[in-house]
């Protein structure tokens, strides 16, 4: 068993390296992914080892990056493209939504679109505009796309492998403020299915459901709640499309309470979908309405306000208290 401790960034880098080694059809594409190794160094050293034909610095054009990745996929390649920051995916949104997502269906299933779009997303790093957004719901709403986000190094390593192996397009959201968090990665393990939710901490009184950067906050909240004698279960959803409602249902039927936590605006977000479905599935088990904690219906604020804007321990615990008060 080869277990190594590494950061999420390193796990992603190792995962890409493995994919490049395993399959000659895998390509890395994006702005600054070559010599610089990407602005977050996720592709560090890959161009040096695999060459400019495999690790491709692209012109500064996101529509071009995704559009040509579609063409390369049609030709049998498996492009993994990097969008530099969340807010810069929108020039490519047209290609992703109108073309990438629908190609398989339009071709009556005869062609596949094994394209992975990696996006460092969400806030907490004190950045300027367009560098801190959580647009996952905008993608999860689109049929034909898979949307996932790892929260720890092991998932970063394995989920990226699985995304690259998938014959469907995968929008792979990387929680950028967790890039430097370390965790154990077993590179010989048999990973959970890409879409499967995972119980990150067991508890009996209430379930917190989260993904990506918010899993850590929820685990901290659960630890804090434990000191007050409350037993909080944390479910890491890992995938926003599809969502593992079966897995979540098991947890909610046990705890009878659910709070969904994400950084993205609450209004029409993934939490809304979860609340609706879980209410439908678990109506007679629930002791309280499903509550949501997340962003406001306002633009992501300037960096000096993001600590107030982002759901932290207090806001999560407040929701736990409100749920338990029913």
């Amino acid at each position, binding site marked *: 068993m080869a277990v190594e401790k590494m950061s999420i960034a390193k796990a992603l880098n190792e995962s890409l390296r493995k994919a490049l080694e395993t399959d000659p059809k895998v390509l890395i594409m994006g*702005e*600054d992914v*070559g*010599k*610089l*190794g990407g*602005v977050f160094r996720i592709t560090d050293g890959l161009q040096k080892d695999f060459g*400019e*034909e495999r690790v491709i*610095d*692209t*012109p*500064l*054009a*996101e*529509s*071009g990056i995704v559009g040509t990745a579609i063409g390369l996929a049609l030709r049998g390649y498996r492009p993994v493209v990097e969008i530099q920051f969340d*807010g*810069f995916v*929108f*020039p490519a949104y047209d290609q992703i939504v109108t073309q990438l997502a629908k190609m398989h269906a339009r071709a009556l299933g005869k062609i596949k679109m094994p394209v992975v779009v990696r996006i460092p997303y969400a806030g907490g790093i*004190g*950045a*300027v*505009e*367009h560098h801190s957004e959580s647009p996952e719901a905008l993608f999860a709403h689109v049929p034909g796309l898979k949307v996932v986000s790892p929260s720890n190094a092991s998932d970063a390593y394995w989920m990226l492998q699985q995304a690259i192996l998938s014959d469907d397009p995968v929008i792979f959201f990387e929680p950028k403020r967790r890039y430097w968090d370390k965790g154990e990665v077993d590179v010989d393990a048999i990973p959970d299915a890409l879409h499967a939710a995972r119980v990150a901490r067991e508890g009996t009184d209430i379930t917190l459901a989260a993904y990506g950067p918010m899993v850590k906050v929820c685990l901290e909240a659960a630890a804090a709640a434990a000191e007050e004698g409350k037993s909080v279960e944390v479910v890491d959803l890992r995938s926003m499309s599809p969502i593992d409602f079966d897995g979540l249902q098991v947890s909610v039927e046990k705890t009878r309470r659910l709070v969904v936590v994400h950084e993205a605006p609450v*209004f029409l977000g993934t939490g809304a979908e979860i609340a609706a479905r879980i209410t439908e599935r678990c109506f007679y088990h629930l002791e309280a309405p499903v509550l949501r904690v997340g962003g*406001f*219906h*306002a*633009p992501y*604020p*300037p*960096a*000096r*306000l*993001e600590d*107030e*804007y982002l759901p932290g321990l*207090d*806001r999560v615990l*407040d929701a736990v208290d409100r749920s338990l008060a029913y």
Partner: protein
Amino acid sequence: MTVESTAARKPRRSSGTKRAAGAASAAKAAAATAQNAEPQLVQLLTPEGERVESAENAEFAPFVADITTEDLRGLYRDMVLTRRFDGEATALQRQGELGLWASLLGQEAAQIGSGRALRDDDYVFPTYREHGVAWCRGVDPTNLLGMFRGVNHGGWDPTINNFHLYTIVIGSQTLHATGYAMGVAKDGADSAVIAYFGDGASSQGDVAEAFTFSAVYNSPVVFFCQNNQWAISEPTERQMRVPLYQRAQGFGFPGVRVDGNDVLACLAVTRWALERARRGEGPTLVEAFTYRMGAHTTSDDPTKYRRDEETAAWEAKDPILRLKAHLLATGGADEAFFEGLEAESETLGKRVREVVRAMPDPDTMAIFENVYADGHALVDEERAQFAAYLASFEEGH
């Protein structure tokens, strides 16, 4: 027809990877010749500070015929103070007062030359590095820092100085400039619009679309591209295979490459382009051939992708030293002038430091401000909920 096309496709398939690799290296060689060849540029002042006359600059030189020695000192002052402001901001970032800074070091001539060509009623659409242009427009430089400190997303009212907010999404503002120019033309006004962007930005679809619209509608807009040779780690040849200014031709308007480290040439060429716009002759692309002396931003590490020799070669073309050499050689300025300017720089630097350190964090409730012009029930509800939540701490809840 069918037979022919099948025949044409076959050998391509069988030649496989070898052919692809060959094609790539041929393209690389072509790019090297297209981009690295000594560029044809409009220059009025050599790196040594000498005025030059040439066939290339003959059309443009008359546009600065009126520039007096005093004007030259003014341009020099603009560049020195802009550099000082920029250096101060970089230092403030290092001290943790700013989250990020995009330095204009090396691009002062391109910005001051073009900025001083503008009339008050012209409208400017910058990207995020146009601190020198902002200076020319009369925007208080400390206002530029709020966004980089993280207290706001803009920091000035664009309508006061006709200087739009910085745009971070690459290339977007070229379309806004074009639309604004379309409006200017509809109004029958004779003002012009200028859009700033980088060489990397020229790869964006938005920029191509801006070129298309402005050409089709003959809009009074000047596209001012500062080709500082790099888009973060990617050199210009990763963006294009022909010299940038030549692109304009394909869209049906003129393109000019100017020595971007020559403030006088930048002034002349921009004035020329603005006058074309005012006369109703439509858009122009100006490529200011210059160099980003520092990192892309304070988060960037250029040692990973570029050579010191390259930077050193450009140092010899420094826009400020060039004008200083000219002023000294022609007796256009004396020691007292330079000393006075040094003192003025100190004062500016001090003021910038003080203002930044005193810049208050925004009020938490500012999150909900200005989301809509008309107000919005959902925002009102969330604001009230959040206020109640915050108040619960004060009550010792």
